[in-house]
């Protein structure tokens, strides 16, 4: 399990000092319960935060789920792919 990442309390607030974001995209296959489980298990997020991010993915089509330098975000994206989530590396804007 990865280390917990220090993130803004409000998850849609952008951490401008971190250049990259692990972005998870909505897809018709991954279950809402499973996506929440992945965010809790891999990022060690509390259930409430994991659910909030999952709902962002579901309703907005995508969510930035972690921020960091390129190396960290590539690691997070690879982990999301291992869970079967559709994730990409985006410049945090």
């Amino acid at each position: 399990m990865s280390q917990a990442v220090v993130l803004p309390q409000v998850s849609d607030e952008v951490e401008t000092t971190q250049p990259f974001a692990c972005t998870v995209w909505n897809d018709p296959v991954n279950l809402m319960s499973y996506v929440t489980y992945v965010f809790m298990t891999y990022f060690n997020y509390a259930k409430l935060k994991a659910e909030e991010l999952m709902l962002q993915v579901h309703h907005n089509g995508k969510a930035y789920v972690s921020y960091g330098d390129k190396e960290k975000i590539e690691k997070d994206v690879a982990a999301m792919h291992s869970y079967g989530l559709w994730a990409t590396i985006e410049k945090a804007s």
Partner: protein
Amino acid sequence: MAHAFNRTITGKIIGRLDPVEQALLRSLLIQLASLLHKTDESENADPIAQLVGIQELAERPEDPALLRLFPDAYRDDESAANDFRRYTESGLRSQKTNRVDSAIAILDRADNKIELTYEEAQLMLGAMNDTRLVLASRLGLTNELNLDGLLAKESESGGPAHMYEWLTWLQETLVRAIADEKN
């Protein structure tokens, strides 16, 4: 309908599937395993690169199901996406292959009751999810609405859309049993 997966008071996760359901789950997992094994090309010329999990030529999969298992990590930068693939795909493929092989081995040792530790339940969950991704891709399931249409078109309940729907239900009960343990 079977109760599928529940967590016991001792923390084990127990799956109760009838023999037909167990055989169906096993055959779906075997299809995923054969897809992953088929593409597991160990013809890497550089043994050191192979050792550290770098592929000299990691090509973007043409099969949409494989592309869904190994998606592009960069959307608008082909060269960055290819680099990412070179460094990660081989490791990711072994991980997914080992996971589904383990899930099949768990089913092989199970009788009418599938007993899982927390770690085994996670392996099973990941393998089921990959199986659903492949099935959905084969079915052309591109949005949440067209499953009903696919189900209606199948004349009998043994068709692939029905299998997909059943596996979705099964995965939901497993993720709930696992999440119970975390809370």
